[in-house]
């Protein structure tokens, strides 16, 4: 029967972002857990305050927690962890700015303002992602 063979869903923005939001949400939780556990393993338990640890967890970059004295901090600057950090930044920024878009579009209809706000959000997204990556690479 015709109906039981499903065509591939059309890959529109809403569809992709809906899936991405769920995947990125899960991965951010995963990254944070890894970041915090790794931080704790590397001595943060005794040498970092909680706030810094959280900051670390969300953005495990030495520049971000410069005021702590974790001896092994510079382990994080190798290539593998840099890729991890870039992923966190990309996932978090995209998840967040898409969330902002969804909230705004809940309250708006298609038209000029929707295009305009999308454009604005797109710029912010590009900007903060690039800045994040810049910080990671340059530190």
């Amino acid at each position, binding site marked *: *029967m*015709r*109906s*039981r063979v*499903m*065509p*591939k*869903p*059309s890959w*529109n*923005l*809403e*569809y992709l972002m*809906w*899936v991405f939001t769920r995947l990125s949400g899960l991965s951010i939780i995963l990254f944070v857990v890894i970041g915090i556990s790794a931080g704790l393993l590397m001595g943060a338990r005794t040498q970092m305050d909680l706030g810094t640890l959280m900051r670390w967890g969300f953005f495990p970059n030495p520049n971000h927690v410069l005021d702590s004295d974790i001896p092994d901090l510079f382990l994080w600057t190798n290539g593998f962890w840099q890729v991890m950090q870039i992923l966190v930044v990309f996932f978090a920024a995209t998840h967040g700015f898409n969330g902002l878009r*969804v909230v705004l*579009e*809940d*309250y*708006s*209809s*298609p038209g000029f303002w929707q295009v305009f706000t999308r454009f604005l959000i797109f710029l912010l997204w590009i900007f903060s992602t690039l800045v994040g990556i810049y910080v990671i690479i340059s530190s």
Partner: protein
Amino acid sequence: MQVTLKIFRYNPEDGRKKHYDTFTLDADPTDRILDLLEQIKGSEDGTLGFRRACAHGVCGSDAIRINGVNRLACKVLVQDLKSRKVTIEPILGLPIEKDLIINMEPFFDHYRSVMPYFVNDDPPPSKERLQSPEDRERFDDTTKCILCAACSTSCPSYWVNEEYVGPAAIVNAHRFIFDNRDQAASERLEILNEQFGVYRCHTIFNCTDACPRDIQVTQAIGEVKKAIVNGRLD
């Protein structure tokens, strides 16, 4: 016992702004809210506007807001309420015509937009199309919908966005999408896979709570989302 009803009033013809009228009347614990409205209309104020038909929760005429939540007036008894003061307002998100009567047209427009009808272009067999009890059970929940609009008008996304098709429309699409005799599932999923299809559902569950037929509305929407994402029906 004495019950006080605070009822939303608005009549475009009398020039007054929207306001509330209060009525106090004697009621039995087993009286329906609808009975009280009838009593008010019959003996106190005949101008009170509300809809009703079957009076036992199968026609879906009398969806209103009782103490801040969407209910059918004929399915709430006085004894079900926590207080003896009842606030009665029209459902949210559809234009108010008069008192508790709202304009249902936008709601039915959304309903019609999801192909809420059986499609099977194959020539029918001489007898019934066979369907196993399990396949029939798959979409049983959503066949119960009476189109009362209680779900859609409890949905914060529906309130603020005129384009969103709303829970009721998705429920009715679900009823056919998961009917294995039907052939237009992919078209319906295509319709719902749009900006104002399932993606405006943020799993707030007001719809499930409001449904007078106990349909698991949010679950139905979730199943449709999953069908879209997976590209398969199971």
